[in-house]
């Protein structure tokens, strides 16, 4: 791959996270470089989703340090991730079920909208112009993901694969500099997976978005990621380029052991 990979923008050092007696993450360190596609793999329950939740402030690790663009990050609340331009999708689709595709994706631009509720109620000032300007941006996302035909459909009525795509759209609408994707292809058929792969690569390529990706499909991971972290039982057992990781003894053992 010939794209330019930049400096480290996210550096996690010795992260440990416990839920009561359960050690979800133990002493994990790894970093993410600007513009790269960084995969996190590992068997179920390895702590991958927890890792993403630590990155965007949903979980707070008991130990360890996190550096974001060179600065140590203090305790972070989830809504601050959005301000730092980190967007994500969830393993179990977390769309707003009662809203249309368009409205769901519009919510992705929430932090960029400045009008207050009085302007909204009276529909004057910034309310109207903002709505239009952001609608234009959202339509770009809709075009990019090729979902024009379902714009006005309530998301609850969509098939699973399309819901995942809309969720990606909502994250993209925020124009994130880092995108966290939690199993974006789980449960998809081959064709849907190919589409999703293409979107991820295009996002990375066209917008330079840094991507942290959790995925089970080894073929996909080896194909599209620049570097891979391997977790097992909350511990890091491998880290490096796909080729390296593939030949790592411990990784092979963990995967064979887990029946993959």
């Amino acid at each position, binding site marked *: 791959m010939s794209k330019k990979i930049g400096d480290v923008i996210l550096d996690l050092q010795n992260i440990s996270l416990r839920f009561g007696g359960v050690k979800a993450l133990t002493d994990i360190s790894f970093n993410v470089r600007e513009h790269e596609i960084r995969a996190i793999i590992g068997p179920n329950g390895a702590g991958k989703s927890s890792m993403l939740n630590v990155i965007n402030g*949903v979980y707070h690790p008991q130990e360890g340090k996190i550096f974001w663009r060179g600065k140590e990050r203090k305790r972070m609340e989830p809504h601050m991730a959005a301000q730092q331009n980190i967007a994500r999708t969830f393993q179990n689709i977390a*769309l707003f079920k009662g809203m249309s595709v368009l*409205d769901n994706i519009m919510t992705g631009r929430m932090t960029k909208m400045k009008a207050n509720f009085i302007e*909204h*109620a009276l529909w004057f000032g910034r309310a109207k112009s903002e709505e239009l300007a952001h609608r234009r941006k959202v339509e770009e996302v809709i075009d990019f993901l090729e979902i024009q035909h379902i714009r006005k459909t309530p998301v609850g009525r969509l098939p699973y694969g399309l819901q995942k795509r809309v969720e990606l759209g909502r994250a993209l609408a925020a124009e994130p500099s880092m995108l966290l994707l939690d199993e974006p292809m789980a449960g998809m058929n081959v064709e849907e997976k190919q589409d999703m792969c293409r979107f991820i690569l295009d996002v990375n390529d066209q917008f330079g978005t840094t991507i942290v990706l959790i995925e089970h499909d080894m073929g996909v991971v080896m194909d599209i990621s620049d570097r891979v972290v391997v977790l097992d039982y909350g511990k890091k057992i491998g880290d490096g380029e796909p080729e390296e990781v593939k030949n790592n003894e411990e990784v092979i053992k963990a995967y064979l052991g887990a029946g993959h």
Partner: protein
Amino acid sequence: MLYREAGQFKTTYAADQQLFPIRQDRIGLLLLLAVAFVGVPVLASEYWFSAILIPFLIFSLAALGLNILTGYAGQLSLGTAAFMAVGAYAAYNFQLRVEGIPILVSFICAGLTAAAVGILFGLPSLRIKGFYLAVATLAAQFFIVWCLTKFPWLSNHSSSGVISAQDIVIMGFNFDTPVSKYLLVLAIVSVMALAAKNLVRSSTGRAWMAVRDMDVAASVIGIKLMPTKLLAFAVSSFYCGVAGALYAFCYLGSVEPDGFSLDMSFKILFMIIIGGVGSILGCFLGAAFILLLPIFLDFTLPGVAELFGLPFSNATVSHIQILIFGALIMFFLIVEPHGLARLWQIAKEKLRLWPFPH
């Protein structure tokens, strides 16, 4: 005229984002407003104004308030009537104690007072959800009514807390006839319904719905849960507060704290369940339904009973009413949680395709 979208191509996003994108809807609404503002005053009798139309509009407004909180922001409340009481008593006190304050300003201040109280009782929503929150709002219901009876100052030391609303005078005109009160209420409710529609189609409304549907995802997107929920409580209580002020000033004339009972809160909750949770139109449909059904039954039941030669009393009517309400509420909760408004929408979708359903 056929109900069609065909031929009305949206060439700009602005056109697509209009309040009512389909032309027939726009025309329909204008016609409705024309009838309400011009036709009804000419045709309706005094009984209709004071017994049906005015309470219908006021309860629609209260239902709007509750629907903003429960239907859009997903926070269940059983304190609607109490927030109306706050509005009623606040408006009364502003008129009483502030020299020369215009009545409309008093109504707005009543809304703001209710909003402040709403925020206070909304604080528990930051920690608790669903059933437990409902119990917390129930506390608001009892506490507020208790306060209004307990502190005589609030009712200007009248016996058992009864207050008599002052005259409504705007720019020298005295709104003392049923028809003038009706027009005033109609104007206020129309403006506030429009504002509510604007709110829910903007990013304020989307933030509410996002918090309602999936709060973790909402916060990851950058929505701050606390201000979003509290704003919903504030706006909702503002609506209920104004509704309460109108209830005292334009409908009953004199009210007592116990009039704003839990029964009334439930009645408004039933309005939004039957009308449509999360729908502006639903508030009006629900209010009309719940207020008109008893009247309808009063008219028809005696006849029906006679037909079957059954014994009949007034108690029977109210029992049958309760039965029918119960059945309907179960029906809507189970079969059509989006209420009459959704049925109306389905009818329109069918109509749009009629006569070729495929």
